[in-house]
């Protein structure tokens, strides 16, 4: 029974159209969020960057980290490129139209719902799923880690999975 189809059709932060097929042959580490996120995304992206740093270089090279926006209205490719290149350079940002992002969310069973931002009434917040997904080189869902899993756990899990034949 397949719950996470891991299908998407988006634009990367350099303006190139990409789908899950664009990365065939590489593992994908996928995280959904938005660049205006104050707490959850910085924490998760920092943790995942540490995970990637902890991997042996030959393993890290087999892995493509993706950061998919749930806020396409504000997260243009240029915004995502600037955000990621300055803070989390290992990640490739993906965004698209509202419809494209909605389809990607469906493919990963991701929740997000804009709501007023109590700290910034002129703006809005987007609570979202904080799960990290691992997609195998054939484009199939391999596993996922909830926000509660430690970086050490994820490193150990990745080392085991990336070293084993797929």
């Amino acid at each position, binding site marked *: *029974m397949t*719950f*996470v189809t891991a299908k998407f059709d988006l634009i990367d932060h350099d303006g190139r159209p990409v789908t899950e097929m664009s990365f065939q042959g590489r593992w994908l580490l996928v995280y959904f969020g938005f660049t205006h996120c104050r707490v959850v995304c910085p924490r998760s992206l920092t943790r995942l960057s540490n995970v990637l740093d902890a991997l042996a270089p030959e393993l890290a090279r087999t892995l493509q980290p993706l950061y998919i926006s749930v806020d396409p209205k504000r997260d243009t490719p240029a915004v995502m490129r600037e955000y990621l290149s300055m803070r989390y350079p290992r990640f490739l940002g993906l965004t698209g139209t509202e419809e494209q992002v909605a389809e990607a969310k469906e493919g990963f*069973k*991701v929740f*997000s719902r804009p709501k007023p931002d109590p700290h910034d009434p002129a703006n809005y917040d987007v609570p*979202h799923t904080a799960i990290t997904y691992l997609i195998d080189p054939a484009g199939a869902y391999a596993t996922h880690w*909830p926000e*509660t899993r430690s970086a050490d756990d994820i490193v150990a899990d990745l080392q085991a999975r990336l070293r084993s034949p797929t």
Partner: protein
Amino acid sequence: MNHPMNPPVRGPRVPQVPPRLDAKQVGSLRQIENIAGQLDGEWTMMGGRCGLQEDFGAFRYQLAYAGLALALAHYHRLPNAPGVFKPIFQNLIRKMMHPGVWMYWHYVSQGGALTNGHLWGKVPALWDPVKKDNIMFSAYLTLLPLLYNYLFDDDRYAKPGALTMAINPLTFGDRMVFEYDQHSLSDTIYWQMVQNGYLGVACEPSCVFQICNQPSILAFRVEDFLKGTTRAQEVTEGYLKAWEEFGMLDAGAHFMVHVVTDLKVPIPNALPWLWSDAWLATMMHSWNPDFVHEHYPRMLEEFLIPGPEDTCAIRLWEPVDVRGVKTTADTADFGWAAVAAAELGDEKTLRGLLGHADRFMNPTWRDGGLYYPRNDTRYDEQGILRLVEPITSNTLLPFARLNVPSGLNTFYNRPWTRTHFAEPMLTEISNNVDVVEARFQPAGSELRFTLKARQDRSGDAEISISNVFEKGRGAWKLYRDGVESASGDDERVAGTADLRIERHADVMKLVASREAMSAYTLVWA
């Protein structure tokens, strides 16, 4: 099996050794056995006032909470007698998959309920009762086999297709088969939870009830015991954050009932209903006990009615107007109040409610089972509560009687380890005796079990005890009512005239004449 993360444990500590089952507790177990053992399609003593399986007395709730009552009774009271519970559990799961339990979903999936009437005509009718929404069934269908796997160390429902529901109608449509197993069911619920931001999975479309998501949390927890995962922790943390938006309590300080998700409208407990508060208090006490203890006792105060000689009853909700018709439903307010009192350790209220049931609700014995015949009269001329819904009789009063204070909370937080399953256990028990005690004491290396003869049965008692010979425990002696009746070691058995003992691989089979009550102790040197 993993070790838990130590969520809060609250309430009085469980006594190390609860007393032997009393007659009413045995009758409660037998009542569950009786309803579960009925043939497919037979629902004697289970029919309630609503014929559409829509209300909270529906078969699925009776079967599911019967299973949870058994689980707690096994875990706390008869931990070394799985043979008492395992066959009943199999029957509960069998009956849960009968179309008479879940066919309501084809109609309910179309919307048109009191709070999702705006969806009527806009969402398709569904047949598969698990794939989308309907957590009010899927959570229980998931929970029961996971409990079975955990309690009896038997993964038969983990195999692909082990939980298959099917209809092959003679007068309409086509054959339909819905194949699941305990883990695919759990995954189906889990990913809906994720996609809903952990607020929960809907019952009827767009209606996410707090209460109906509690059993799925328990199911995740039990699956975590089996697989070493941490879904329950993930889901409960997400649940607390998600409900911040709507409030877990309403303006009247009762538990919020549900949220209409497409409209983002929370539905308060406006009448209010006791069933909603008591049911949620019970189930949430497993993982969020401090919150429950902080709020539930005050909710209960609004409903309790003192009665004679320390009995007490509860105030029922008044029938409501539904499309111009005064309507009521089986909501088991009395039953859930008793269950909550048992779980939260409110001995006075529990004693009062059970006393009321025994005094005013016509306790009746049938085939060894204690039940309270259905009574649709709400109050008699003296204003005494007389209403008995089948779920209260069959499932909830048994649940209240068989649980121990904080029983669900302890069950959630202190799982059995593999050591438990290596202990000597009563795995098969003839149906002419009741097991009222069965516990292995590792310190003394002794298994104590007590059998009571059923008055409505005849023949010798036959018991199979597993994990006896092949664990290298050495020499043993079996005492019956304090008198040595047999002895042996890892290879040899020697019985006496009134006991026949055989060895079958690792199992000791014991055949004994039935006495009114016999206390056995199997002791290793």
